[in-house]
């Protein structure tokens, strides 16, 4: 299962849900974003029971991305209880995403 790309409405619904939400802010023209996508899809599979693992295209959701303070991508933000709890820019490996989650969940 690949990580789902969502819009603002879905994002707001997820934030109000029970599970933590992990968002990968990305854009189609961003080489590093593409490079993390296979590992990120794997993360989505692996954590499906505990975390909502999704993606937001910053070109499609410009206002939302600005509100979330995104100015460098790929940027992963973990939201807990509706609030941004931690972020990481351009993780270099799947293991780095795993430890980011382990440290902040």
């Amino acid at each position: 299962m690949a990580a789902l790309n969502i819009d603002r409405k879905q994002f707001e619904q997820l934030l109000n849900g029970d599970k933590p939400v992990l968002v990968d802010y990305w854009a189609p023209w961003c080489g590093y974003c593409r490079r993390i996508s296979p590992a990120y899809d794997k993360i989505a599979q692996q954590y499906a029971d505990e975390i909502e693992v999704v993606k937001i295209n910053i070109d499609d959701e410009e206002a939302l991305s600005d509100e979330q303070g995104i100015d460098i991508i790929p940027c992963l933000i973990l939201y807990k209880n509706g609030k941004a709890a931690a972020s990481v820019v351009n993780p270099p490996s799947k293991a780095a995403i795993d430890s980011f989650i382990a440290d902040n969940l």
Partner: protein
Amino acid sequence: MKKVYDMLVIGGGPGGYTAALYAARAGLSAMVLEKLSAGGQMALTHQIDNYPGFEAGVDGFELGEKMQAQAQRFGAVTEYAEVYEADLNANPKVVKTSEGDFYGRTVVIATGAGPRELGLSEEQSLIGRGVAYCAACDGMFYKGKTVVVVGDGNSAAADALLLSRVAEKVIIVHRRDSLRATKIYHQPLMNAENVEFAWNSTVKEILSDGKVSGVVVRDVNSGEERQIACDGVFVSIGRKPATELVKDQIKLDGSGYIVADESTKTNIDGVFAVGDVRTKQLRQVVTAVADGAVAAHMAEEYLA
């Protein structure tokens, strides 16, 4: 009971997946250990024009995914794992990773090369926050901004030219007092109105306030230091092989590349080195895939 693969491949670039493809087609069980995604360095190149068979060029990321899919079609498997340690002299050979330990009768090292770093203390933490190593990948972020390019070779000159078309101002920090790059770069760089030079200089420190805000450069002759305000620092001082993992077991040359000839054989039996990580004359996708095929052939011979 632990599964022992005929071949463990460390690194999922063109060399690694070609080794896996040839191994799988020869009936060997092969696993590729890749930390992020297929393709390696070429995954960041949007257009590759010198890989034969694609007259209009090919996207490096897509080419990587295709090589992966092709190897997998014949039974090779991929594990998205970061390799922490390898015991290449053990029998079977052991590779310890973020996803557990894996065992192989042969190991192909296809870890490639990466950008050489300046080695400054703040550098690592500012990657993605102003410190960059690939103008073609990250240049877009610096539209209308000021960037510093560090380096005096051809790749620095090419990066500076590329950035001059996007950024407001480009400052090249150059160790000497004249360009070392090939002549074709001289005139365009001198003619570009927004390119400046800091001659005889090295970067001593990167300044930041959460992201890059400038650099401190040092004049190599006078020792005088001054600050240059900028939004980005592009480091373009060459490449270094990814051999940290095996440096205590495998013979390396003076620059850190694995010593192996056309046969891809290293000093350890059953361990092969392919692609950019190996000592060779020309580091290209096409020479990496050639190595992969040879390594699989040699592995087959070794296992026979």
